[in-house]
């Protein structure tokens, strides 16, 4: 088993409330950037990502005493972050849209987003990700951007590796179709 950080022990078996808060802050400092990027890729805009990242760490604080290390801590936290992002998407669900329509909307929103710096290729990539169905989006972001092995994603999410691979395959095909349709973007 991979050695766990000192603050994890303090979070799981706190010696005092002050020490536990210090450990919690250490955990946030370690993971806030990757968790933020993860939920931002799933949600698109900063306001939703900010909400999801805060909810993620509150849930981690609540559940960490039950973490037994079946999956690596990073994968476990990302799985919680993914669920929080999906919860937020579920609360804001609008009518069903086609992939093309969702892609156009996401692309337009990213172009107008003051906190998005990507070029046309990056915009196409992220708009295609945001247009994916929610489960496919979660798997694609964990696998493509975070490079988590299927085994770790499976352990953290409880989904079989076969189902994860199928989801990733469908997602990657859709994303590839939009990204390669752009001029001057290599396949």
């Amino acid at each position: 088993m991979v050695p766990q950080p000192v603050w994890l022990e303090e979070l799981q078996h706190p010696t005092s409330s002050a020490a536990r808060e210090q450990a919690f802050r250490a955990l946030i400092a370690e993971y806030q950037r990757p968790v933020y990027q993860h939920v931002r890729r799933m949600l698109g805009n900063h306001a939703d990502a900010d909400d999801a990242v805060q909810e993620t760490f509150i849930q981690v604080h609540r559940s960490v005493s039950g973490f037994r290390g079946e999956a690596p801590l990073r994968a476990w936290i990302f799985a919680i972050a993914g669920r929080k992002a999906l919860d937020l998407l579920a609360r804001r669900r609008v009518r069903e849209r086609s992939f093309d329509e969702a892609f156009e909307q996401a692309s337009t929103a990213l172009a107008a987003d003051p906190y998005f710096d990507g070029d046309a290729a990056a915009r196409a990539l992220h708009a295609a990700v945001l247009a994916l169905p929610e489960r496919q989006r979660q798997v694609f972001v964990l696998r493509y951007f975070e490079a988590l092995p299927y085994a770790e994603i499976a352990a953290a999410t409880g989904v079989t590796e076969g189902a994860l691979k199928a989801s990733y395959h469908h997602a990657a095909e859709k994303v590839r179709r939009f990204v390669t349709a752009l001029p001057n973007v290599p396949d």
Partner: protein
Amino acid sequence: MEAFRTPPGYFETLPDRIVARRRARTVRTLSWAAAAVAACGAVVVLVPQMLERERACETFACLLDATRTEELLHDDLLEELAEDPAAFEVLTEDL
């Protein structure tokens, strides 16, 4: 390079906001729990009292208290009735 940016200083303030949000939620949860405990306590105390009140009186004093008739009775008569089971029965029939 990451395409997604954050407002300036975002990650510097994020830990404080998360800790504050968690505390606020804990306080809210405790308030709800306290309200729930108080409501349960009230049920535990009041329900036996209500049941006790509805239970039939088995003593003369209780009967008088329940029917609020003692102010109508003279003290001597009260004592007499209390010592006379037959009179007690007649009185309860009238009530």
